[in-house]
């Protein structure tokens, strides 16, 4: 798995946005991850605790907002949420299925603290 490189990328993005916005500290990070994107939350958290030392993000909480995989049948228009294995359309049996959501993989927002200007 590639959680270390993923975590390094998350850190770089958060540090960049924290600095641009004059943060003294980042307290929370909101990640949006689709059900079909392969990433292990615990593993990211493990690397995070190590690589965020000595950065604005040290101690920040990672929040994983999972987006369920929603599919739509091209044949009959039926929309359904994926549970377990990919299947044919449960309504009409067609293979012509569009994936509407579930492939997201981005940093949605960060919560920062700022020192008040004196």
């Amino acid at each position, binding site marked *: 798995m590639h959680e270390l490189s993923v975590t390094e990328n998350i850190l770089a993005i958060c540090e960049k946005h924290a600095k641009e916005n004059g943060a003294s500290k980042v307290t929370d990070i909101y990640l949006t991850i689709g059900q079909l994107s*392969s990433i292990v939350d615990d593993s990211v958290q493990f690397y995070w605790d190590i690589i965020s030392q000595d950065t604005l993000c040290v101690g920040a909480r990672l929040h994983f907002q999972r987006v369920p995989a929603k599919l739509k049948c091209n044949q009959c228009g039926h929309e359904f949420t994926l549970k377990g294995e990919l299947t044919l359309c449960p309504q009409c049996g067609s293979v012509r299925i569009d994936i509407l959501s579930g492939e997201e993989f981005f*940093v949605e927002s*960060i919560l920062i603290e700022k020192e008040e200007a004196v």
Partner: protein
Amino acid sequence: MSKERVPVVEQILSANDQIAMLNRQRLNAAGVFSINLMASPGAGKTSFILRTIEGLKNSLRLGVVEGDTAPVTIDSDQILAAGMPAVQINTGGDCHLDAVMFKEGLDQLPLNDLDLVIVENVGNLVCPASFKLGTHLNVLVASIPEGDDKPYKYPAMYRGVDVLVINKMDLLPYIPFKMGYFLQGVQILNPGITSFPVSCITGEGISDWCHWLIAQRNQFIGHED
């Protein structure tokens, strides 16, 4: 002290994607077409590359970038023995090639003397799917002994490729591989994808693949994007 929520909405792998774009621009400038071969370990990527070299060596000048997790040159040695320039990239244990590693590979190839660069990614059906390299086509080499359930188990890989090679077709009579079930999963994830059933042992399907690849390359030369 004040608290503030800062909207970011930045793709986690955007840094990689940007370098991949630079790799693509560099290849385009040199007029070199490139393909990224991905597969599980043992699917026959190297054998397939050797067959492709054999089929194309009179038509195109090829170079190969080999990715492996350990510092071995087993694969690149075979390519060099076939008379083609090859570069071995050791990922240092990483499970995939990324755009920076591919850039390092390109640095070592004589791009101006090549028509086609083939990348052999690290054998893995999970991670390489997430890391764009900047190649023009992503190719998945599936193989019969892996089993017919792989599209269902590795949807991101099957969804993200442009062409599918089904290798080791010569083993189909000996293995309980339900082609209908396999292709159904492929169709759900990647409707209408071009596929080539091949065997690197018998040579079945290789010339169809080579003709198709030459056509893709000619189309690229006529219209670079």
